């Protein structure tokens, strides 16, 4: 795309808008979501303005160009606001892609003497609009993801149960990320559990924690220290082999804590500490 073409497109702002809108109003999916075609016109005009202002002969072929960021931010905002108004992803995508038709029609009027150039520019504009569509799509996905994550957060808070596994031994499995807020909940529940059940050993199982970075390690150390202040012991179980290797490379020293690979070995350790023993009982076979 040449600078001249970009300039011509900018001059044709009103015409492109007219093409775009008239085609939107005729489309079958032009539902009742817009209060009036005035709303559609205002929004489209704003979007077109930003597109035309942003586009340059350089960034049209480079979707990662930093000067496209304002456009992408605008598209994200637009996508979110349309989603809130009740537009489906398909409606928003169709809306954005229909801009392509209007732009291409205008291009055909601008580049009249060089079919090669028209072809090249058409491809570029087409890809550019596709990319705007992808940004909108990604915003949708990210929105969904945030909903899922916040639901997961809520579930996590509910699901840090203290389990009494034996007289004097409690356990708490942690599933998910151990961030600061979560650690607070874990610590409170665990300390309360120790007091309530008069336990002297708490097992913290981290099989369900995806990664142990320096923050998680710090949270574990804090939790262990708090438990010790109550006069109880803490065993960390569920250290998977890949986690063990990673923690060592990271350079974090967990050797002051009692750590076990599995919940079973943590339980065994706890029973031994309490001077308890689990034995197989030989049954009389009198048949």
């Amino acid at each position, binding site marked *: 795309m040449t600078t001249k073409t970009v300039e011509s497109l900018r001059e044709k702002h009103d015409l492109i808008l007219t093409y775009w809108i008239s085609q939107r109003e005729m489309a079958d999916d032009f539902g009742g979501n817009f209060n009036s075609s005035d709303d559609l016109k205002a929004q489209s005009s704003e979007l077109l303005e930003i597109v035309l202002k942003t586009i340059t002969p350089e960034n049209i072929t480079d979707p990662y160009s930093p000067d496209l960021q304002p456009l992408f931010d605008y598209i994200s905002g637009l996508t979110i606001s349309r989603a809130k108004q009740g537009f489906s992803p398909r409606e928003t995508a169709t809306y954005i892609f229909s801009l392509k038709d209007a732009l291409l029609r205008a291009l055909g009027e601008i580049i009249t003497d060089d079919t090669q150039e028209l072809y090249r520019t058409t491809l570029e504009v087409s890809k550019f609009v596709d990319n705007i569509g992808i940004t909108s799509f990604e915003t949708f996905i990210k929105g969904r993801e*945030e909903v899922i994550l916040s639901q997961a957060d809520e579930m996590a808070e509910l699901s840090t149960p203290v389990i009494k596994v034996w007289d004097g031994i409690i356990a708490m499995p942690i599933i998910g990320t151990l961030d600061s807020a979560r650690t607070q909940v874990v610590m409170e529940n665990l300390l309360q559990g120790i007091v309530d059940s008069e336990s002297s050993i708490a097992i913290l199982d981290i099989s369900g924690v*995806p990664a142990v970075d*320096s923050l998680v*390690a710090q949270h574990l150390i804090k939790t262990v220290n708090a438990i010790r202040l109550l006069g109880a012991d803490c065993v960390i179980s569920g250290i998977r082999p890949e*986690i063990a*290797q*990673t923690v060592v490379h*990271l*350079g974090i020293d967990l050797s002051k804590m009692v750590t076990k690979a599995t919940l079973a070995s943590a339980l065994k350790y706890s029973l031994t500490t309490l001077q308890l023993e689990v034995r197989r009982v030989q049954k009389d076979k009198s048949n």
Partner: protein
Amino acid sequence: MTTNIREQLSIRQERDLIICRNRVKEAAVKIGMGIVNQTKLITAVSELARNMLIYGGGGNVLLETVTRGREQGVQIVFEDKGPGIADINKAMQDGFTTGKSMGMGLPGARRLVSEFFIESTVGIGTTVKIIKWKNG
């Protein structure tokens, strides 16, 4: 044929760290990286993205799969426009922190990945680029 991954993510809040880790894991799985290297990589990512959030006031992450010769890998660039790091050599030492933390993030992340580049200018910002090769 493997399609290359190239994704941009922004880190603005704690929750974005989880999304970022998940994306990186997906990329690592896609090129067939083993579980140990995967875990090392996402742990390094966790450190660097959190640094960006805490000290850099948030920033952007560019996640790509890359190829060198026969090796495939995951490359991630963390870029923030925060206050920058005055003395990088110090910051890269085990135990150095200006917060109340352990000071293991940067040096630990370097040990966990195959290639590590850091560039920082006070008042301009910090950029860290890492690569983890599939078998690295």
